């Protein structure tokens, strides 16, 4: 007993000593001379505007222009013009970039319209300023030994749950009057699902994207029974910005939008097109031929006027209602009264603002 008590006592003494020590130094005036050189360099700097704005993106066909923006210096030039510093951050895992944006660690991020609901639902003022592309056959339900969507009944299907792949499947099942519970969903990252379909003949159905879709169909390993071509304009890729950052640096939205359309012009202009595609293919670790096929499944909004019109179009609003309903039904968005705003004056947590794309 005595032994244990003395140990306990010494622990307590140590704790108290540490606690007191901590307090004491807090109250002390800062030590002179060499002890606190840290304080000096931060003095007299206007902290808020002079910071680097971080923009997250991940590898996806419709987002490869970000690579172009960086490689060709479009972003650096536009940012220098407006006197701000902007840095692109490439994320190896897409969902990590969404989480980073949702927790306020990124000022802007490329994500689908579906994921854009999540930071908004988490309380981030999210503004969609650029529509990058809509999927046009680039996402699809890939099967072997199954004829059509009805043939999926009771089958196991690999896909990334609660992603646009999931949404695509549900829209497909909907179109033939089936329910999600008619199939067995196994959560697998879309790339992994695509690879598994090719390597494992026991995998009968996956929802994935390109290049897996055309690789499997060209190799005669499977066929696509439903794709984003069947729901045109519903799988939307956006560049969204945190409204707090846009307010702090109003030029940020302009810089990002202008640099994006610099990249679009480089892709459209026959003189620079091949070079642009080569850069983007390199970034996607694909060959130029493969990347061209991937681009065929993606409707890139190179036309600025069309892109601006799309952001606030009635069809877009109707699509967003469908995506919102899916998100609420699947627990992605808890607030059943969640609303989406349109236009520069909207105040909803998620809003589509075409003014950046419209301005020249």
């Amino acid at each position, binding site marked *: *007993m*005595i*032994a*244990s008590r*003395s*140990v*306990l006592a010494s622990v307590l003494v140590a704790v108290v000593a540490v606690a007191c020590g901590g307090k004491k130094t807090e109250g002390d005036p800062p030590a002179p001379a060499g002890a606190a050189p840290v304080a000096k360099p931060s003095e007299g700097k206007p902290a808020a505007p002079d910071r680097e704005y971080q923009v997250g993106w991940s590898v996806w066909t419709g987002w490869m222009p970000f690579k172009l923006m960086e490689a060709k210096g479009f972003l650096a030039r536009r940012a220098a013009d407006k006197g701000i510093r902007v840095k692109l951050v490439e994320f190896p895992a897409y*969902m990590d970039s*969404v*989480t980073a944006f*949702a*927790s*306020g660690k990124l000022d802007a991020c490329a994500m689908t319209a579906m994921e854009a609901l*999540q*930071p908004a*639902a*988490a*309380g*981030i003022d999210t503004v969609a300023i650029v529509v990058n592309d809509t999927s046009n056959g680039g996402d699809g339900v890939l099967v072997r030994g199954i004829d059509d969507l009805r043939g999926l009944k009771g089958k*196991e299907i*690999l896909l990334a*749950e*609660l*992603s646009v792949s999931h949404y695509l499947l549900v829209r497909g099942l909907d179109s033939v009057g089936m329910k*999600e*519970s008619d199939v*067995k*969903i*196994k*959560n*697998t*990252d879309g790339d*992994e699902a695509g*690879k*598994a379909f090719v*390597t*494992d003949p*026991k*995998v009968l159905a996956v929802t994935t994207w390109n290049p897996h879709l055309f690789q499997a169909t060209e190799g005669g390993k499977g066929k696509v029974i439903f794709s984003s071509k069947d729901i045109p304009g519903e799988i939307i890729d956006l560049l969204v910005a945190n409204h707090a950052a846009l307010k702090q640096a109003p030029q940020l939205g302009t810089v990002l939008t202008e640099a994006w359309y610099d990249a679009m012009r480089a892709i459209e202009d026959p003189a620079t097109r091949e070079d642009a595609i080569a850069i983007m293919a390199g970034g996607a670790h694909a060959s130029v031929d493969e990347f061209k096929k991937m681009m065929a499944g993606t409707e890139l909004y190179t036309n600025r006027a069309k892109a601006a019109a799309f952001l606030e179009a009635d069809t877009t609003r109707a699509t967003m209602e469908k995506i919102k309903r899916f998100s609420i*039904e*699947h*627990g*992605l968005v808890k607030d059943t009264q969640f609303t989406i705003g349109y236009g520069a004056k909207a105040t909803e947590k998620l809003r589509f603002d075409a003014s950046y794309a419209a301005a020249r």
Partner: protein
Amino acid sequence: MRAQPRFRAIIGSPLPPATRVALGALGVALVIAGYGYYVYCHRLAGGNPRFSPGLGQLWTALGELTRVDPRTGSVPLWTDTYVSLWIFARGLAVGVALSVTLGIAIGTFATVHALCSPIVIAIAKIPPTALIALFMIAFGVTGDAFKIALLAFGISPTLTLGVAMAARAVPRNTIVKAYSLGASTPAVVIRAIIPQIVPQIIELVRLATCPAWIYLIAAEYVNASEGIGHGIVLSQRMVQIDRILVYVIWLAILGAALDGAFHLLSRLTAPWAAARKDD
């Protein structure tokens, strides 16, 4: 003043049970207090409460996870736990069977040692998670096979080396004595070596459960329709930090319970080992 001799606390002196429990509780309280302090700082800095859930939020999340989900018709936390534990048990069983057999062979026979020891040492250096893609190709993604294989492969090399070391450490005297009493080589292994190293094997398996969880969760991250790893992935996708924390706390509780079970097993199968420690 004092008639009694004074006792000094030295390294290794046991604590009375009450003190031990109190100190254990203090440890838990310190971690909770530390988290509370983090939450407090995060909120004070204007952080979003969604990313620093307090106890109330965790309680709500626990409630959500232990209610029947109308979409699947099952209780997420229990289904996930059951699925994960079932894969865990099979993976652990395969891994332990492999490594104990091979480990004893390596530790006992010089030829097996010379043959296997270098390659096992080399394989033990491979992070199994680097092989996930290969395992998916080899074992398929439609069943649990690839998860079981990953788990078994993950724990086996280190476990094998541990068992081999334990077998090699059996005193030469014991082996010579057994032979001189007329035992055959198989009898020496089964009756002299194995019984001696059972408590070490149990201890090694207990330590192997930690990496085993990692591989299980990693495998479930990749591909699953149920399981704790799957639950964490989905919570991540929904940016529900509170749910992730509930799963993490639940993992800690499960792990601690498993640890206790192994201690109990050790005491039941080899009570002499516990006594030996105090020699």
